[in-house]
């Protein structure tokens, strides 16, 4: 196994001058390739803030974050955007897709940003849509897709760039439970069969159930970090803090 994310002692405080909100406090996090991790915790516990920090969308006030050995906290803005393009796949809660592009074009976009060849793009798009089970919807615009289908396309897009890991902030929050489970099944399958690393935040117990590792945040701090002992994912054992 090799390390994908290595976060040391990171903190993020909002409004430090007025009424400080300690959104993330002294978090240590170590993620290995192939992990399937849920970030849980009550609303306001800092899940989004932590994911933004890990995804290089925001900078911590303290600590550093190594992605595949690169300290992203020291990258300049443009280099950081480029780093995200090449190393991190994003799935947001909703509105992931460009409405004027078809599902296929949305997935292609990220590869075009990476200057992939047309033949490579065509080939990969086909595989990706097979994996998310939406081959017949490739040429459909987002508005014609259900919420669950849109999120699956977003996963395909995140995957298209061949990232180090995929980061998803409450990807199922706007989905009915059937669609949520379907999305999670696809993610779990990708994780299992292709060793794709996922970290996603959620408070849906049925989503948590499918995670292989669960990190619980309370008030911006890691409260517990447990890993499933068997493949059914029903029993978790605590992981020692570093």
């Amino acid at each position, binding site marked *: 196994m090799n390390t994908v994310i290595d976060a040391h002692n990171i903190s993020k405080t909002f409004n430090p001058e007025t009424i400080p909100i300690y959104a993330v406090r002294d978090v240590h996090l170590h993620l290995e390739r192939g992990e399937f991790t849920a970030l849980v915790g009550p609303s306001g516990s800092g899940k989004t803030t932590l994911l933004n920090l890990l995804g290089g969308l925001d900078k911590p006030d303290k600590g550093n974050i190594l992605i595949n050995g690169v300290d992203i906290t020291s990258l300049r803005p443009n280099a950081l955007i480029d780093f995200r393009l090449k190393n991190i796949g994003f799935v947001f809660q909703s*509105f992931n897709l460009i409405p004027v592009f078809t599902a296929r074009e949305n997935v292609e976009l990220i590869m075009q*940003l990476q200057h992939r060849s047309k033949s490579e793009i065509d080939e990969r798009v086909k595989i990706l849509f097979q994996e998310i089970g939406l081959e017949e919807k490739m040429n459909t615009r987002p508005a014609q897709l259900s919420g669950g289908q849109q999120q699956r396309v977003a996963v395909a897009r995140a995957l298209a760039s061949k990232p180090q890991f995929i980061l998803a902030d409450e990807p199922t929050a706007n989905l009915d439970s059937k669609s949520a489970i379907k999305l999670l099944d696809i993610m779990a399958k990708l994780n299992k069969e292709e060793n794709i690393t996922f970290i996603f935040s959620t408070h849906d117990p049925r989503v948590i159930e499918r995670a292989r590792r669960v990190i619980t945040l309370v008030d911006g701090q890691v409260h517990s970090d447990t890993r499933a002992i068997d493949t059914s994912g029903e029993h978790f054992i605590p992981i020692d803090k570093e």
Partner: protein
Amino acid sequence: MWLLKLAWKNMWRNRNRTAITITAVFFSVILSVLTNSLQEGVFDNLIKNVVSFYSGYIQVHKSGYWDEQILENTFENLPELQEQVIQIDNVEAVTPRFESFALASSDTLTKGCMVVGILPEKEDAITQLKNKVAEGNYLKDGDEGIMLGEGLAHRLKLQLNDSIVLIGQGYHGAMAVGKYPITGILRFGQPEMNNQSLYMTLSNAQVLFSAENRLTSYVIGLENTNELDQTAVNIRTSLGDTYETMTWEEMMPEVVQHIRTDKGSMVIIQLVLYMLIAFGIFGTLLMMMVERKYEMGMLIAIGMKKFKLMQVMMLESLFTVLSGCLLGILVSIPIVVYLYRNPIRFKGQLAEVYEEFGFEAIFPTSTNPEIFLNQGVLVLILGLVLSLYPLVKIAKINPVTAMKK
């Protein structure tokens, strides 16, 4: 390529807004082309009227003639001198004139008049004098008769075929007296011309005023009237100090002043027009940025460089503004051409002023292609400058805040 595709598809995502922008640009181009074309057309027409009316575009006199119009300030009509002028670039035609004041009498009445000696055909080529003939015939070389303004004839109670007596002072103080049959009556719109002018052949005039082979002026017609000043300079250099070369602008500064004042007020109207266009376009840009903030944040988050996003926006603006411009130009061409063929006729006080000067009371348009190009490009630039606003906004986007609901 996909940048183009994204820009193109973005352009159609909010059809109403794009339609509003294109329409705004479209009407701006039409309006500014029309105002400009009308302005140019009216002034071209005015100049053409004024110039063809009498003065020609350029005149050559003996030095000092314009300030003191006496026969001592005439010059000798040398064939080589005329040849020298006609050789100069852009000079299309030259006609000699002899002009002097005289008293015109019928049996009972006497009025002052301006006697103009001309070469009939050459004069007509430059000032279209033939068009002014109301009765009788236009002069021919060797004719003994004269043509006079309708007003002058009326004041002297004279008609076609009557005789007229002219008395004046000739060259070097000689007496000038002559009796001529009236073979033509001219109708000028401008009262001064109508009431005072009298035309005869150049040789008759020179005989009358005892000024054999002398001239007051060469009247010059041009091939390209846009090169007025340069041509005047060339003539001036070629002829030297003995002669004065004057453009119609120098001979009639009041007309130039009138045009300048009018152009000034046109500039203000156009500025207001451009401001309205600018606000229209800016409004749609503001709306668009609010609408797309989340999406732009998302694109930056997943790894699209801001510069790429700016390119997309710029292309999108270019498509929109350019289509408005092209449509505007396309539609304005037939309108301008129609108004050129069927000029707007106006009535009222302004029309009276125009007619007094012998001009038709019309607002023709100018079909100069430069107008379409200039106005199209101006609106295009205006649109593109305004679309720098989204670029500035993009430069400031922070994906985390942009994606916050």
